């Protein structure tokens, strides 16, 4: 009953120390606040803001995706717990936020891509896939008995119109971008991305830029260890989504670390410290 919900909300609100609390209108996604906000959706976005950064860039010959995957234990096998997934041959997805929620999105995206191919005999176009993913996210913001997804996904697609990048957020909003980022280092990443001329880059160059941005964004969470995941769909990979070849990865990591050293170093003489 409404009275008991309000009573419960008041006591739980008193326990919060954050300033942007809903005070009784934030218990379910099925409730608007008086100023027209759905707090559960905003809280879901917070789940993304506290997690590893994901970055995507559209280049002239493809799309590059990168994720700062925080490592919670030294005993974790390298390469496990991936945050980048293939949706179809021509489409890949990188996530920031709760990776387990992202896996549900990936499953749905894969099913949509498969069903489009089965019905129409062609690769699902990026804008169709993007709309399906956005709609799927949105459904979970309508009802009180489910919660919104706590992840943002960057979807890179190379379809018959060329390379495309989309980002879908917990609210269900999903736009097309030339470059975008999600997660803790989003602001830093967006600032750096705006300065790049992404349309003139090749994927090899963009891979390095993505790595640099993620290494720099990681400074926000310096105390935790991380692994960079880098993937692309480009002419070089025959328009198939895959993790970048080892040499491209090593080169990108090396240059990213060197760029950090350059920034940190105040000396005129810079040593290219290759680790």
């Amino acid at each position, binding site marked *: 009953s409404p009275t008991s919900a309000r009573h419960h909300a008041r006591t739980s609100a008193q326990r919060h120390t954050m300033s942007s609390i809903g005070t009784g209108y934030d218990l379910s996604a099925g409730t608007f606040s008086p100023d027209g906000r759905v707090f559960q959706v905003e809280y879901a976005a917070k789940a993304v803001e506290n997690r590893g950064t994901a970055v995507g860039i559209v280049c002239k010959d493809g799309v590059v995706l990168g994720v700062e995957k925080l490592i919670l234990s030294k005993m974790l096998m390298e390469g496990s717990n991936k945050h980048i997934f293939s949706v179809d041959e021509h489409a890949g997805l990188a996530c920031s936020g709760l990776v387990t929620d992202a896996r549900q999105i990936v499953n749905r995206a894969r099913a949509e891509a498969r069903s489009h191919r089965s019905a129409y*005999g062609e690769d699902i176009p990026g804008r169709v896939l993007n709309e399906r993913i956005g709609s799927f996210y949105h459904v979970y913001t309508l009802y009180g008995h489910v919660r919104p997804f706590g992840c943002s996904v960057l979807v890179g697609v190379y379809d*018959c119109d060329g390379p495309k990048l989309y980002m879908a957020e917990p609210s269900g909003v999903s736009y097309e971008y030339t470059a975008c980022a999600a997660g803790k280092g989003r602001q830093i990443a967006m600032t750096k991305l705006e300065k790049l001329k992404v349309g003139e880059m090749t994927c090899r160059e963009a891979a390095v830029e993505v790595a640099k941005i993620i290494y720099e964004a990681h400074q926000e969470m310096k105390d935790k260890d991380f692994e960079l995941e880098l993937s692309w769909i480009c002419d070089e990979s025959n328009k198939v989504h895959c993790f970048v070849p080892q040499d491209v990865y090593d080169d990108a990591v090396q240059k990213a670390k060197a760029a950090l050293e350059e920034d940190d170093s105040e000396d005129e003489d810079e040593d290219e410290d290759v680790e």
Partner: protein
Amino acid sequence: MSRLASNSFVAAGPEAPCFGLDATPATGADEVKTGTTIMAVEFDGGVVVGADSRTSTGGYVANRVSNKITPVTEHIYCCRSGSAADTQAISDYVRYYMDMYENTSGEEPEVKVAAHLFRSLCYNNKDNLMAGIICAGWDKRNGGSVYSIPIGGAVVKQPFTIGGSGSGFIYGYCDANYRANMTRDECAQFVKNAISLAMSRDGSSGGVIRIAVIDKDGVHREVVYGNQLPQFHDSY
């Protein structure tokens, strides 16, 4: 929603009106001669599709001016041979799916998508259908394309293709006279000649020749009446 010219028949039993291939009823009675000649040719920038206009039930011509060329989208048409009911139902489904596709993706589908849908329907329901379809049209990525979907539900892309009972009489003519890279008008004349020859030899094909030329600007339809058909010999 159908934009077909109405062939208003009730299709039932072995005497069902069809245009297409011969059908022998299980009773072993006289063959039900059904017939059609359909054709499509690709040129740089579009396709020309053509068909005769005879629908026969046994020896009776039920419709001598029927329209066997049916729109699926603005730039994709299909030529229908076989059972009228089956091909009308299939093309209605494909038109519906293409409409959905255009609504959700914001773009007109490519010819190969329409051909894929025709093939899915024809193959998955092969036990219950008698339909030989030619799907041809124009899309901005591939230009003109012609796909043949014969009975059974195979799909094959070809520079030109012929179908229906009348086609058997003109394979030689077509093979001898087709050239790659013909212009639009040469293709149209090729189609008119071939269908005219088929109509003069196949009892189940006749009437007028209907032509549709499809390019980026849309469709231009033409009719060649009986007294204007290309002639190949004055007296015989």
